[in-house]
């Protein structure tokens, strides 16, 4: 394994360590969404997935 891979692994590991307390804080303090709120996220995400599939088909 070359040093770029080791460096990348250390970098990602440091990001995980740094993010962990922020993640816990976000889980604790973010408000709960209703079904309607989640639909407001799911609908545009389905559109994004469809668009990415379209892009993949166009480059194949």
């Amino acid at each position, binding site marked *: *394994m070359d*040093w*770029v*891979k080791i*460096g*990348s*692994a250390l*970098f*990602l*590991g440091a*990001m*995980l360590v*740094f*993010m*962990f307390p*922020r*993640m816990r804080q*976000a*889980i*604790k*303090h*973010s*408000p*709960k*969404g*209703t079904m309607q*709120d989640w639909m*407001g*996220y799911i609908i*545009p*995400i389905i*559109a*994004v*997935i469809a*668009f*990415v599939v379209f*892009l*993949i088909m*166009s*480059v*194949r």
Partner: protein
Amino acid sequence: MYQNQTTVARPQASVLSTNKVLRNTYALLSMTLVFCAAMAYVAVSTQVSYGAALVANIVAIALLWFVLPRTANSGAGIGVIFAITGLLGFGLGPMLSYYLQVNPSIVMTAVGGTGVIFLGLSGYALTTRKDFSFMAGFLMVGFFVVLGAALLNIFMQIPVLHLVINAAIIMIMSGFILYQTSSIINGGETNYIMATAGIFLSILNLFTALLQLLGAFSGND
């Protein structure tokens, strides 16, 4: 969720302030994206190594974590955000060089695709004015899991996992764009430098994930 209460109850000064943050964010975002592209061009034309790109990324993330939060409320924050975006653009060099060599059209498709996704999602958040603050925990956990999977895959080298990670990054970054845009609209984010940093990172991650996904499915990865 609470959008009706907030928009009706918020005084005009607050709405004007929100519009100012939004305008400044998009102005700074467009400038940083141009600067990032210029730095990526420099890195591609000078054939920067993977090691140098990794160092640029590490320095950029260190600036983002430790320097930007301390300078975001001053003029120095502008210089720091340009340094971060420039270094991240420079860090794209080796990946862009590779895809430009094997299939340049993929890079253009990824740039266009990222632009369409960003404009579409921002337009959606701006027109519906929905409050996406409930997604903070979900997005953070999702990103944490993806980073963990990416770390594992450095050692395991599973091609399918690589594709799954990139697909997940696209969905999570799309969520972050909605979350960050709604955060500006609803007054959650009042600092345009921090808002720019957040949206810029989402766009950059979206672009790299889309580029790798297109590269894999076109048989060039």
